């Protein structure tokens, strides 16, 4: 096979060489996170994704060495392939900064700022996008769009009000599960993700729609309202799964597995799709072989108070004295949540104050 020619591309003054056919976004990712445009709908693992959210718009100030004319309009970097000698402006372009600010404002018109109660808080791409590229306030003063509550089966919850219609979940169902039972209904601002006649989404790999959702529109019913992600400890773990690779991230608090997700790379994209069994049904530490802590970008709220790289000393005291070590401070003495003998991950549905009260009564 003939070797692919390499194209030289300059993005925000950083030059990289990439194979022909590479998109500007992928080239920018190779150049480094500093110059990589944000992407809400693009997902490298999903065919045909991208181009919709318009957050990755960039200015092509030089088309190529052969044709140096600039492109008149801003282009979606996720769907525009590079040319040799192309020069792209991302954050160095005032037009791009202004347009992206506009896109964030548009996206936030109908996206509720319910981060304090949203399960995606802390790992929400829209939160990061609005923090990095948005304006300080909104100029929209009209009533926001709302939708009826909608459930997609016993494991996945849809909050349509939070959806930004990136179509990623539709593509996952289409390309990964072999059967698509949901899609987009209506059009314009009334467009919504919906299933066909209240069918539940229960295909083998359908749980991945939760991982690809950039906002909190699709959430894991086995985890909802159980905890905040920054309180949890992400661990790489695997198991011998007959369906998928079995490589996952466990989200633990103490020894309790609160949530299982696929492993995500630095762009927030899933490395290996995981099956529903691994995701929803294996909620015990003993189900997994723990590999070690998962490295989370240090700028993420999830990495707060986590000391990656620190080696925990081997606990030998129980081996020596033959009993459990005495705790100097039991967290349950100072915290209202997580009373002893209450395994939150095993509660059906979200945990409410009644669960704790019940616990008190049972004492």
């Amino acid at each position: 096979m003939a070797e692919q020619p390499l194209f030289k591309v300059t993005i925000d003054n950083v030059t990289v060489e990439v194979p022909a056919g590479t998109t500007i976004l992928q080239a920018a990712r190779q150049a480094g996170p500093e110059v990589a445009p944000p992407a809400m709908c693009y997902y490298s693992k999903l065919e045909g994704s991208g181009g919709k959210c318009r957050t990755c718009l960039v200015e092509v100030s030089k088309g190529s060495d052969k044709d140096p004319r600039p492109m008149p309009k801003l282009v979606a970097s996720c769907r525009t392939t590079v040319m040799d000698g192309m020069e792209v402006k991302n954050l160095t372009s005032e037009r791009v900064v202004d347009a992206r600010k506009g896109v964030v404002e548009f996206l936030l018109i109908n996206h509720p700022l319910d981060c304090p109660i949203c399960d995606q808080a802390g790992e929400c791409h829209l939160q990061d996008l609005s923090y990095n590229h948005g304006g300080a306030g909104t100029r929209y003063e009209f009533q926001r769009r709302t939708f009826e509550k909608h459930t997609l089966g016993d494991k996945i919850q849809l909050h349509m009000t939070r959806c930004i219609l990136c179509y990623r979940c539709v593509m996952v169902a289409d390309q990964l599960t072999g059967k698509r039972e949901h899609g987009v209904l209506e059009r314009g601002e009334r467009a919504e993700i919906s299933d066909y006649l209240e069918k539940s989404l229960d295909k083998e790999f359908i749980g991945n729609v939760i991982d690809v959702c950039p906002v909190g529109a699709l959430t894991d019913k086995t985890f909802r309202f159980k905890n905040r992600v920054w309180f949890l400890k992400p661990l790489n773990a695997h198991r011998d799964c007959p369906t998928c690779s079995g490589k996952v991230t466990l989200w633990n608090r103490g020894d309790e597995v609160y949530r299982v997700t696929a492993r995500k790379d630095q762009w927030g994209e899933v490395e290996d799709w995981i099956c529903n069994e691994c995701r929803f049904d294996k909620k015990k530490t003993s189900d997994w072989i723990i590999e070690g802590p998962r490295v989370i970008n240090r700028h993420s709220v999830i990495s707060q108070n986590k000391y990656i790289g620190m080696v925990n000393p081997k606990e030998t005291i129980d081996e020596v004295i033959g009993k459990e070590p005495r705790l100097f401070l039991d967290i349950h003495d100072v915290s209202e949540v997580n009373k002893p003998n209450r395994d939150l991950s095993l509660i059906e549905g979200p945990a409410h104050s009644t669960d704790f009260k019940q616990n008190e009564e049972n004492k």
Partner: protein
Amino acid sequence: MKLLLENAHIEGIRYYDTYRKHGGYRSVEKALKMTPDEIVEEVKKSGLRGRGGAGFPTGLKWSFLAKPEGVPRHLVCNADESEPGTFKDRYLMEFLPHLLIEGLIVSSFALGSHATYIYIRGEYAWIVDILEQAIQEAKNNGFLGKNILGTGFDLEIYVHRGAGAYICGEETALIESLEGKRGNPRIKPPFPAVQGVWMRPTVVNNVETLAAVVPIINMGGEAYGNIGVGKSTGTKLISACGNLNKPGVYEIPFDLSVEDFIYSDEWCGGIPNGRRLKACIPGGSSVPIVPTNLLLKTAKGETRYMNYESLSDGGFQTGTMLGSGGFIVLDEDQCVVKHTMTLAHFYMHESCGQCSPCREGTGWMWRILKNIEYGKGKMEDIDLLWDVQRRIEGNTICPLGDAAAWPVAAAIRHFRDEFEWHVLHPEEAQQRNYGLAHYADPREIPVIA
């Protein structure tokens, strides 16, 4: 000079026998003796520009069509005429269906399409019947089907009804819809000429464009190119409406001045009841509105003509576009704010919802406009509206974002005082617009009791 509507007045021209008697299908007989490349060359020579709105040279578009070995190619006729103010294709298809069929046969032969589709707007239900009857007649007389006129060329024409979405007039959304999918525009590239219907090379042309191929072949590309002015060759169908004494579909020469077209008795016959002309949208609702002083004369003081170059002279600051030829005239009693609000409502309703600026921005623009129109607006709303349209324009997947933004931008640019009047005289504005309650958003508390 009439090239398309010459025989439109003849009774029974809708039927094959009458059409044939008056010289119908001559171009097919002529074209099938030529090679496809010769036909493309004739169309190139004619300088024909696409009549759907964008005005891209048709011959050039045809020459872009990829010709991979063994892969079928397709021609699609865009009859999804949904632009407010545009109704010329409907007239052509209703009264001269065989002219379109004839143009389709010639064009299909030139492009190597053996399965050609007419994607027609669903609301044109009765025209579907007319077209299907015409197709059957053409088939019965050997102009369609297998081995047309013994030349070995096979062609089937299928009529496909749309479901009434404006966005399906955009060529890639049309292709998606034709394939049975949701009518969302595709991201270009790849262009349809490389990957169109079912990933095959496809050309999408407007009804009028394809009909114009008939006189081009009959009279020769060069002769056709000599008619008209500059790069605007041939003739153009204009659907004139609004405050005109004689609204209707006209076939105009490109050297006709806008003033003549509006006021001359031969054409639209002026404004009813002697009222003055206030503004006009000359190319369908998506093109910028222009006030009288810039409509009849360019910014340089030259006469404005009904052609592509003259109407766009001066850019959007002082000019507009010929577009699809939906000529909407507003007299002095019309309110530009109300008019813009109506258009904004249309674009909000018709946005496909795929990309964020269009999905969220069109609704925002409409709500601001509604507030201003109802006398609930603030002075800063006008600047906000300007800013919102600015951030939609050019940032969307397809031109619908531009189509929604341009009318708003032009209305503010040329008629800002009217917007300010609504803000400064809220009570009068509210009283005047009492009858617009049907524009209330069901999700919002009505602003009028």
